[in-house]
């Protein structure tokens, strides 16, 4: 590498070499899987980062790298952050799990927080949000609002997270509307707004008048708006630009409270490895404003459902629930354990079709 060598020596001559600056600031790193401008998953994590900056001001320095592919690139970015003196690193995608563990082994003094995974270590915590609680509220509203009794659902890939959401929404729609039917389309991509638009259009054409989405773009909202009489919900971010109709409510990831709390713990020296799965109660899952397009009584019921979950009085997966094949899953009054929920790979009774394997 002739020219780079040359360049390097030139830079050396100019005395440009800079070392990492050591100071009292707590340094927090964020590794993002998408661009901060994706308007969804990464966008919300970045809002959490900004909230950390806002909260602690001068006492904290945050750094981030966006669009980091899962695998060796992620491992390198984490290592780089650790080398440069990060005290706490949030790795915000499931695929960062093994890289996080690998890097954490090399830097025992740096704390790591991995989103949506299951491997922990002395200096690695995992955290995730109970989106399915939000799905329960959505399912309730959807079941009440549908006139065709067909609810369309756009999923990305058939992973436990998405399947859990489908089951939760279905159970709660079914509870208020026994005739309800779910049509599910798997986009088989994390991100392709045009495909999401097509999927929403197809669902509407096949009679769905409520669309639930587990993909992050507003494409389904726009398709619903065009159709005129189709209800949607915001996903990942509020998507309030489509309120009050077709977007009647939303599920929002709010990572800010957690990020602030964990940063504080590092500052205070009280950080401990933990397995956090927070929901509506802790504020990690927020329900966006339910618009006036929803009848007052339905809105009230939905808020009551939300309140019950916030108070810890109600679990969205409370028996009796059977699996799709008719076998028993939860007995009357029994609630699902977190282990089963985390790895959920089956539909509940009543849902049609098979989960792609």
């Amino acid at each position, binding site marked *: 590498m002739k020219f780079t060598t040359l360049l390097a020596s030139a830079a050396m001559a100019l005395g440009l070499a800079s070392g990492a600056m050591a100071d009292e600031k707590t340094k927090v790193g964020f590794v993002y899987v*998408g*661009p901060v*401008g*994706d*308007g*969804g998953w990464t*966008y919300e994590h970045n809002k959490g980062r900004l909230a950390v900056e806002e909260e602690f001001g001068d006492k904290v320095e945050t750094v981030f790298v966006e669009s980091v592919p899962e695998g060796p690139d992620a491992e390198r970015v984490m290592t780089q952050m650790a080398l440069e003196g990060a005290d706490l690193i949030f790795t915000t995608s499931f695929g960062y799990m093994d890289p996080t563990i690998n890097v954490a082994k090399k830097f025992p003094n740096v704390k790591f927080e991995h989103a949506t995974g299951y491997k922990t270590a002395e200096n690695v915590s995992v955290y995730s949000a109970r989106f399915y609680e939000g799905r329960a509220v959505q399912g309730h509203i959807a079941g009440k609002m549908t006139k065709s009794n067909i609810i*369309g659902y756009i999923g990305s890939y*058939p992973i436990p997270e998405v399947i859990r959401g489908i089951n939760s929404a279905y159970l709660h729609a079914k509870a208020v509307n026994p005739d309800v039917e779910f*049509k*599910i*389309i*798997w986009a*088989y*991509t994390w*991100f*392709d*707004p*045009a*495909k*999401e*638009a*097509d*999927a929403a*259009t*197809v*669902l509407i*054409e*096949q*009679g769905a008048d409520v669309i639930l989405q587990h993909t992050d*773009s*507003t*494409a389904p909202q*726009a398709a619903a708006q065009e159709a005129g009489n189709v209800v949607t919900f915001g996903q990942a*971010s509020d998507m309030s*630009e*489509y309120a009050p109709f077709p977007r009647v409510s939303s599920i929002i990831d709010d990572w800010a409270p957690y990020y602030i709390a964990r940063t504080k713990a590092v500052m205070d020296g009280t950080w401990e490895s933990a397995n956090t799965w927070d929901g509506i109660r802790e504020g990690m899952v927020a329900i966006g404003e339910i618009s006036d397009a929803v009848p007052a009584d339905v809105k009230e019921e939905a808020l009551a459902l939300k309140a019950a979950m916030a108070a810890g009085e109600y679990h969205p997966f409370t028996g009796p629930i059977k699996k799709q094949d008719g076998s028993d899953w939860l007995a009357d009054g029994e609630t699902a354990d977190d282990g089963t929920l985390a790895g959920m790979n089956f539909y509940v009774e009543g849902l*049609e*079709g*098979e989960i*792609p394997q």
Partner: protein
Amino acid sequence: MDLGEINPVLLVASLMVAATPLLLAAIGELVVEKAGVLNLGVEGMMIVGAISGFAISVETGSPWLGFIAAAIGGAVLSLLFVVLTQVALANQVASGLALTLFGLGFSALMGQSYVGVKPPSMGDIHIPVISDIPVIGPILFQHDPILYVGIALTAAVWATLKYTRVGLILRAVGENHDAAHALGYKVIKIRVMAILFGGACAGLGGAYISLIRVPQWTEGMTAGVGWIALALVVFASWKPWRALLGAYLFGGITVLQLNLQAAGVAIPVEYLAMSPYIITILVLVILSADKSSAPASLGRTFHASH
């Protein structure tokens, strides 16, 4: 499973929408390739068109101005390709790839403040009576104006290439640039015009995604459509109407697989998801019996040595 739930009329109508960005970009690239230039930067020009169109229509409130801006944006980016391949005589394949890389990055920088913004709507054309005819109405007369622009453009390109002097010269340049040069045609000038046209079309295609089909701005939102458009040109054996057919076929299979999923057809989803690509390959194999081949000078650099 209930195939009766698939409404063929709506299916055709929505496949036309799904096909339009592809068609616009492919028609532009077809002209470029007819002139003997291979521009692999379609994806980059589309995404720059997508953000240019989005930004301008948000700022002005007019989708029409947005589309004009998108065409200009795509064409401006293709100017870089012009400089590289026509002035600096660089390799076209590498230049095109560089254009895509650059375009993806540049559009993301441009679009930073447009995330989560909703663009003004263009609305569909609705002609009383005609649009309400059963079957034909929804398929032919209830779309957004740009969809018709795409079809009109196809017709115009076809007619121009086939019947006009400009078309003849363009083809001559693409077939044998040395001979065309010897005949006194300005090879470089014609190619530059073709590349700019291709850039403008790709820009329109991108804006169709960000303004009509989705509509939203997010980084990298064209998600590979530009590559499919490139494939489509080869698929079409450089014939405009066949590009239209190919775009509808590809859009059709994409929409059909989603329809089959929603109707609960028991074909594994991953096979449905890969079907548009496999069927494209199959059709291509069948079509390769047709020996009307690529423009002879495609991808070759022209330098007038005398």
